[in-house]
C-alpha cells in the first residue's frame, strides 16, 4: 500500500531522475550534511517568521512584540523559536563555513559555491540584525543607534540611514521590517543557487579518496552510489527534524530561567528587554545582539571608524571571498596548507575571544598594549603548533593519522570556551561562574582525551582507508534500533496528547514549545534509526 503511494509520487515527480548528487555510503555522517542543518534552521525561521508577520505591527514594534508574547495563543513559542532559529542558523552557518574552509572545499571547482556562501553569511547577519531591531526594546534601539553611528561616521554613507531605518526613532519599524524580509528573500534565492551548485558538484569526497583538486566524483563514479531518492531524503529529514526539535526546546526551556547574570543575558535570554522610554531601561547595560558583540568590541579599539571597519568587517570579508584565489595549491590536506589553516584557526579564536570580551566589558575602551596581550598568544601558539606538526605520508602517498576538520573545529571552540570560562572564574569567583566552568572543563577534558591518541599515536594508528569492505552491522543492533523506534512512537503519542491541555498563553504556554520540540526530536531520531535499520549494511 505505502509502496504503491510512494511509487505513484516517484513516477509523477521523476524522483529517480533528479539531477541530484548520488551519495556514497560513508557520507552519511553529520560532517557532510552541515549545509542541511543550516537550511533546516533557515526554513524553520522563515515559517515562524511568516506566522509572526500575521501579528507584527511595525507602527508599534515593542507593544506588538509584547502583544505576541502575552496575548497571541502560543505567540511566545513562535517568537522565541523564531529568534533561536536565527541564532541556530548563524552558529550552524559558521560551523558549516569553517568546516568547509579547513576541508578546502572552496577550491576548484567550488569557488563560486564558496563565494555565494560567504555572501549568504553576510546577508544572514544583516537580516538577523534587522530582525533583532524589530523588537524595539532598549537593547534593539541602542544597537540601532550604534549601527547608525558607525554608518554615519563614514563619509558619504549617512544617506543610507533613512533608507535603511526609516522613521525608526519615531517608533515606526516599517522600513526595518521591509528590509528584514527583503534580505531573507535574497538569502532564499541565493540558497537555491548554492544548493543546486552543491548538488551539481556533489558533496566533497573524503580526503582519503580524493586528496587533490578537483575533488569531485566523476559521473561514472556517481552511478555506483546510492540514489538521492529515497535514502538521502530520509537521512535529510532526520537531520531537519532534529534541528527543529532543538530550535523549539532550547528557547522555550530558557524562557523559564529568571535572574540570569547580566553577562549571560545576551546569549541565553529569549525575552525582550524593557522599552527604551521606560524607567527600567536606565538600569540595563546596553549591548548589541550576541552575534555582533565582536564588532562592538572592535569598535572600542580605535576611535577611527574607517580603521574599525577595515579590521572588523572589510578585511575578514575580503579575505574569505578571495581565499579560493589565494590558496592555489592543489592539496586538500590541512597540513599542506598551513598558512590558510593558521588564518582559519585564528579567525575562529579571535571571533570567540572578541565576542566574550565584548560581553564582559561592553563599551569599555581597550588600550593597544592590552589588545596585543590578548591577540598575540593565540597567533604565536598557532604558528608554533603548525610549524612543529609535519604531515606523515604512508607508502601510498596518503597523509594519515590526522584529525578530521570538524574535530579540530570542535577542539578549538571547546578550548576557547574553557579558557574564557576559566578566566571569568578567576576574575569573578562565584557559584555561577564555577557552575559554568565545571561543565566546560569536563567537555574540554573529554575532547582532549579524544584528540590525544590521534595526536600522540599518529604514526602508530593505521586509519582505515575507505573502501567497499565495510563491516556489517550486527543484527541485534538493528533489532534494538527497531525496538527504540517503537518506544519513541509510544512516547510521541503520550506527548502529543499532553500538548492539547497546555494553556495557549501565559506562564505555562512555553511547555508547548518544549513538548513539540521533543516530538520533533523523537521523529528525527526515529527516522535516523529507520535509516540505520534499512540502509546500513
Amino acid at each position, binding site marked *: 500500500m*505505502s*509502496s504503491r503511494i510512494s511509487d505513484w509520487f516517484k513516477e509523477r515527480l521523476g524522483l529517480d531522475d533528479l539531477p541530484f548528487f548520488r551519495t556514497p555510503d560513508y557520507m552519511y555522517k553529520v560532517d557532510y550534511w552541515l549545509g542541511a542543518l543550516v537550511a533546516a534552521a533557515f526554513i524553520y525561521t522563515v515559517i515562524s517568521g511568516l*506566522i509572526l508577520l*500575521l*501579528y507584527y505591527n511595525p507602527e508599534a514594534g515593542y*507593544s506588538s512584540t509584547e*502583544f505576541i508574547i502575552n*496575548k*497571541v*495563543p*502560543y*505567540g511566545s*513559542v*513562535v517568537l522565541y523559536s523564531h529568534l533561536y532559529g536565527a541564532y541556530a542558523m548563524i552558529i550552524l552557518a559558521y560551523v558549516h563555513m569553517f568546516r568547509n574552509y579547513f576541508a578546502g572545499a572552496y577550491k576548484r571547482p567550488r569557488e563560486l559555491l564558496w563565494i555565494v556562501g560567504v555572501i549568504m553569511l553576510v546577508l544572514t547577519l544583516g537580516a538577523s540584525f534587522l530582525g533583532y531591531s524589530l523588537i524595539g526594546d532598549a537593547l534593539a534601539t541602542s544597537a540601532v543607534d550604534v549601527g547608525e553611528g558607525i554608518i554615519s561616521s563614514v563619509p558619504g554613507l549617512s544617506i543610507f540611514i533613512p533608507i535603511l531605518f526609516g522613521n525608526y526613532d519615531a517608533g515606526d519599524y516599517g522600513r526595518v521590517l521591509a528590509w528584514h524580509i527583503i534580505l531573507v528573500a535574497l538569502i532564499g534565492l541565493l540558497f537555491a543557487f548554492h544548493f543546486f551548485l552543491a548538488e551539481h558538484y556533489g558533496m566533497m569526497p573524503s580526503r582519503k579518496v580524493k586528496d587533490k583538486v578537483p575533488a569531485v566524483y566523476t559521473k561514472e563514479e556517481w552511478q555506483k552510489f546510492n540514489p538521492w531518492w529515497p535514502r538521502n531524503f530520509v537521512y535529510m529529514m532526520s537531520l531537519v527534524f532534529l534541528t527543529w526539535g532543538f530550535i523549539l526546546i532550547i528557547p522555550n526551556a530558557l524562557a523559564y530561567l529568571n535572574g540570569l547574570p547580566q553577562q549571560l543575558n545576551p546569549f541565553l535570554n529569549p525575552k525582550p528587554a524593557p522599552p527604551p*522610554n521606560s*524607567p527600567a531601561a536606565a538600569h540595563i547595560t546596553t549591548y548589541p545582539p550576541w552575534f555582533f558583540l565582536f564588532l562592538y568590541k572592535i569598535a572600542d579599539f580605535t576611535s577611527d571608524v574607517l580603521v574599525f571597519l577595515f579590521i572588523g568587517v572589510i578585511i575578514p570579508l575580503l579575505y574569505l571571498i578571495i581565499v579560493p584565489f589565494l590558496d592555489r595549491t592543489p592539496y586538500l590536506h590541512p597540513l599542506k596548507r598551513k598558512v590558510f589553516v593558521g588564518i582559519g584557526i585564528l579567525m575562529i579564536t579571535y571571533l570567540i575571544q572578541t565576542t566574550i570580551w565584548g560581553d564582559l566589558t561592553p563599551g569599555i575602551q581597550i588600550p593597544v598594549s592590552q589588545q596585543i596581550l590578548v591577540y598575540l598568544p593565540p597567533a604565536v601558539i598557532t604558528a608554533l603548533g603548525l610549524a612543529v606538526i609535519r604531515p606523515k605520508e604512508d607508502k601510498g602517498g596518503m597523509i594519515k593519522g590526522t584529525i578530521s576538520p570538524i574535530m579540530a573545529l570542535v577542539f578549538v571552540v571547546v578550548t576557547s570556551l574553557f579558557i574564557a570560562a576559566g578566566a571569568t572564574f578567576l576574575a569573578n569567583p562565584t557559584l555561577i561562574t564555577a557552575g559554568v566552568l565545571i561543565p566546560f572543563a569536563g567537555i574540554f577534558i573529554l575532547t582532549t582525551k579524544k584528540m590525544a591518541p590521534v595526536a600522540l599515536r599518529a604514526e602508530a594508528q593505521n586509519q582505515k582507508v575507505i573502501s567497499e569492505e565495510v563491516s556489517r552491522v550486527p*543484527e541485534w543492533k538493528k533489532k534494538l534500533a*527497531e525496538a527504540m*523506534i*517503537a518506544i*519513541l*512512537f509510544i512516547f*510521541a*503519542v503520550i*506527548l*502529543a496528547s499532553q*500538548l*492539547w491541555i*497546555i494553556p*495557549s498563553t501565559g506562564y505555562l504556554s512555553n511547555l*508547548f514549545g518544549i*513538548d*513539540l520540540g521533543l*516530538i*520533533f526530536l*523523537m*521523529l528525527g531520531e*526515529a*527516522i535516523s534509526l*529507520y535509516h540505520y*535499520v*534499512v540502509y546500513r549494511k
Partner: protein
Amino acid sequence: MIKFKLGKDDKTILDYSDLAFIRKLTKKMRDPKTRFDPREFVSKGEDYLFNYTNKNVGSVDEKRRRFLKSLIFGIAAAAVVGIIPGVRVLVPPTVTVTSGFPKSLLVDSSGNPIKASSLPVNSPYIVIFEYPMTGEPNFLINLGDASGKPVEIPPTKVVVPQTGKTYDFPGGVGPYKSIVAYSAICQHLGCTPPYIHFYPPQYVGPAQLSAPEPDQLSAQALLAAKQAKVPALIHCDCHGSTYDPYHGAAVLTGPTVRPLPAVVLEWDSSTDYLYAIGAVGVATYPNGSNGIPSTNPTDDLSSSFGSPVGNKTVVSETENPFSS
C-alpha cells in the same frame, strides 16, 4: 541462526528471518487458494517464481520496513496532531476598542508619572488631561463614597438614549478600581470646564440649588442622583445636563441625549503608573449625518481635530470651583 564452521570463521547460511520466510512461502504454495503451479513454472521459468513470491509473501525485508515506516508515520502524525492546538496562532485577534489610539502615560506638569494610589478621592479640583488629541480635555476622577472611601467601579453597559444602542464601559482602574476618566466636553452643546465638572458627595445637596455659576445643581439633578443612589455627579451648568460617573457617565438628566465618552485607562500595578489607551462610547464630536453621533470613538482620531498627544499626556489641576 544456522551457522557453518569453516576454519576459524563462522559463516552464516540461514537467518531466522530467512527461515520464517521459507516457512511462509511453502505454506502458501500448499494452500489450495494460492497453489503454486509447477507447469507455469516450467514454462515461464524463474520469473514466475519471483512474481509468485512477491504477490503472495513479499520479501521479509519489505514487511519489516512497512512496519517501521508505519511507526514513523505514526510519530509524524503525533507531531501533526500535537500542532493542531498551535494553529490557534492563525486565528486573528479580536479587534479591541483601543486600536488606533495612542498609549499615553499620564504625567504631572514636571513630567513625572502620576501615581494612581496618590490620587485624592473625591477631589473637588477639576483634574484634566488631554487625550487622544491635543485640546480634548478629559476628567480624571478617583471616585469614593460619601465618607471619602474609594469605591470599586464595575464594568457596565451604558445606553445611548439618542439611539437606544448600548456599549460596554470597562470599569475603574487603580488599586481600588476606583479611578475613571471621561471626556470633559458636554455632549449637549460642547460646554467645557469649569461649566461642566465633577460634584463630590459633600456638594450634592440642597445648598447647591442656590450656589452661583458654575456650581449650581438643578433640582432635577438632585432628584436623579437620589433615585440612582449615587453620591456624586458630573453636571454641566450651561443647560443642566447630568451624568453618572459611577456607571460610565450615563445620562441622568437631559437635555443631553448622549453619555460622556469614557477614556480607557490602564494601571500598571508594578509601577503604579496610569496610561490612557483608548476611548469607548460615542465619538466626542457629534458630527454624524442627521445629528446621530458616530458610535465609533476612532472618529475622534481624525486629523481635523488636532494632533495626537503622543506617548505622554500632562494631567493638570485647573482649579477648585467650589472654593470661591
